[in-house]
């Protein structure tokens, strides 16, 4: 506590002293602790087969090998299937989310719709009813509609989860577009659709990127909904097949090396997307979580 209090003193003041170095050292320690589990997992994924099954485990690989990745590549239906399931679901989620929320946000931001406030609240209903509680009726409905075990079905569920956040972000972004812009376009004879495509969408690119980014990360990572909706292992997403691999592998016990290679592959897209689009991520979090 004292250390962090001194941090403020240091930040606001100009004096550079021992506290400055101490706080720098604390930062370095924190970074090390946070990165260590990830680094260890990646290192474990490149251990040779025998070493990855060693007990007690080695800290770092004594030889390099991609055996674990090869075993994952051909595990059950094969890694490409699971990658495509995860990726396909995430892309469908982004598409459906944007197709629904962009026009809806436009309507809410610009059109005189009767009962607009009430409709907005209904559209945000999923904010107060957690999807974890709705899976039972969702599953029944999806079973009737033949949407279980389909990527489309899972993408619909993921869209329902992500819908309120996306609508909220886009409506705020559209509402801040200056009215003169769309009024001028309308004067020039543009239809409402042209106004949406030529005025609103270009001025809301950051919000659209934010919505797509969050939809991707949520869908790529989501576990419980996929567990409920997908029962055929050929339809499993990456987290599901890895959870299966935790207990069932060809080696008898858990194939720890293969598990680590799967974890590494699941993590890479999220971390890359985050590092590339950090600005959008943080601003989305600010406006989404703290209204």
């Amino acid at each position, binding site marked *: 506590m004292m*250390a*962090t209090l*001194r941090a*403020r003193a240091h*930040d*606001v003041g100009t004096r550079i002293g021992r506290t400055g170095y101490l*706080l*720098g050292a*604390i*930062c370095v320690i*924190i970074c090390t602790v*946070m990165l260590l*589990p990830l680094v260890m997992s990646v290192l474990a994924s490149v251990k040779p087969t025998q070493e990855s099954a060693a007990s*007690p*485990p080695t800290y770092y690989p004594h030889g390099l090998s991609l055996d674990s990745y090869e075993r994952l590549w051909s595990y059950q239906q094969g890694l490409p299937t699971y990658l495509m399931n995860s990726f396909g679901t995430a892309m469908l989620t982004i598409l459906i989310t944007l197709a*629904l929320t962009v*026009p*809806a946000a*436009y*309507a809410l931001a*610009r*059109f*005189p*719709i009767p009962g607009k406030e009430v409709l907005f609240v*209904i559209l945000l*209903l999923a904010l107060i*009813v*957690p999807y*974890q*509680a*709705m*899976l*039972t*009726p*969702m*599953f029944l409905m999806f079973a009737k509609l033949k949407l279980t075990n389909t990527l489309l079905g899972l993408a619909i*569920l993921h*869209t*329902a989860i992500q*819908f309120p956040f996306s609508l909220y972000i886009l409506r705020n972004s559209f509402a801040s577009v200056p009215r003169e812009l769309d009024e001028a376009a309308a004067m020039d004879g543009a239809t*409402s659709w042209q106004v949406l495509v030529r005025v609103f969408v270009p001025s809301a690119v950051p919000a659209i990127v934010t919505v797509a980014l969050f939809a991707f*990360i949520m869908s790529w*990572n989501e*576990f419980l909904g996929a*567990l*409920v909706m997908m029962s055929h292992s050929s339809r499993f997403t990456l*987290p599901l097949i890895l959870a299966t691999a*935790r207990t069932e592998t060809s080696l008898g016990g858990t194939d*720890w090396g293969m598990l*680590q290679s799967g*974890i590494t592959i699941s*993590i890479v897209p*999220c*971390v890359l997307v*985050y*590092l590339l689009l950090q600005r959008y*991520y943080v601003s989305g*979090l600010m406006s989404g*979580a*703290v209204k």
Partner: protein
Amino acid sequence: MKRRTRNRLVGLAYLAPALAFVGAFTVYPVGQMAWMSLNSWSLLTPPRYIGFANYKRAFEDDQFWTSFVFTLEYTAIITPILIIGGYLLALLTASNSPLRRFTRTVVFIPVVIGLGVSSLLWYWLFSADFGLVNRTLSDLGLISQPVLWLGEDANRSNLAIIASVVWKVMGFGMILFVGAIQAIPHEINEASMVDGATPRQRVTRVVLPLTLRTVLLVTLVSVIGSLLAFDQFYIMTAGQPQNQTATSVFYVYLNSFPYLKLGYGAALSMILAGTILAFTVVQLFLSRRSHA
């Protein structure tokens, strides 16, 4: 006048797909869930109306209470760690020096990876015979034989899982707190310095009060997330020992899917949704008051 009517129709047309989607995939399931909870409903037999019997059964069900109390315990332990830890990290890294920025980025990385995947990672780290936690502890001479972290004892499992989740989500609160701290106007900081406030006073009398709304909102998000915990327990303990670490969501899942007691599962879902709603209302009320 005519144009206004036309505008309304056009607006409704843009809104219609979203309304239809939310109607079908959010509003209808909520109604269906309420209706199912009043029925004896399995996939094998036709539904039969039984009034509130499912709710009555829940309150007499020992496992329901075990799950409920365990989830509350988990939430009560993890929330203060996440909020206080996140706030201290924010105080440490709020200034924009390169090292602080870098620390923020690093602390936030686990937030963007999946909870399921991070749970698998920690399942390995905490594994008794193959995990690095036991290897490290034994190299340091702190333990003489492998500790069974997961699945043997409910409290020990809970602590191991809490450690993994703290690693995974601490950055979430930190980033939001940093945003709130940076939003404090410079004049206020300067004024408090001119008045000779000590660093401790500046934190307790200036920074903390001005960011209290964010603290409450992050607490809300965090508590709700913890009450809905599932992935980490499903993956790391599978509810063991004897379903003592099966959280509320886990118990809903068990009843609805492996057991196919859909009516009972729906009643448990309703109770869960009601609990979450109560927390949401209380905390929204608190955050609004602190804002005024």
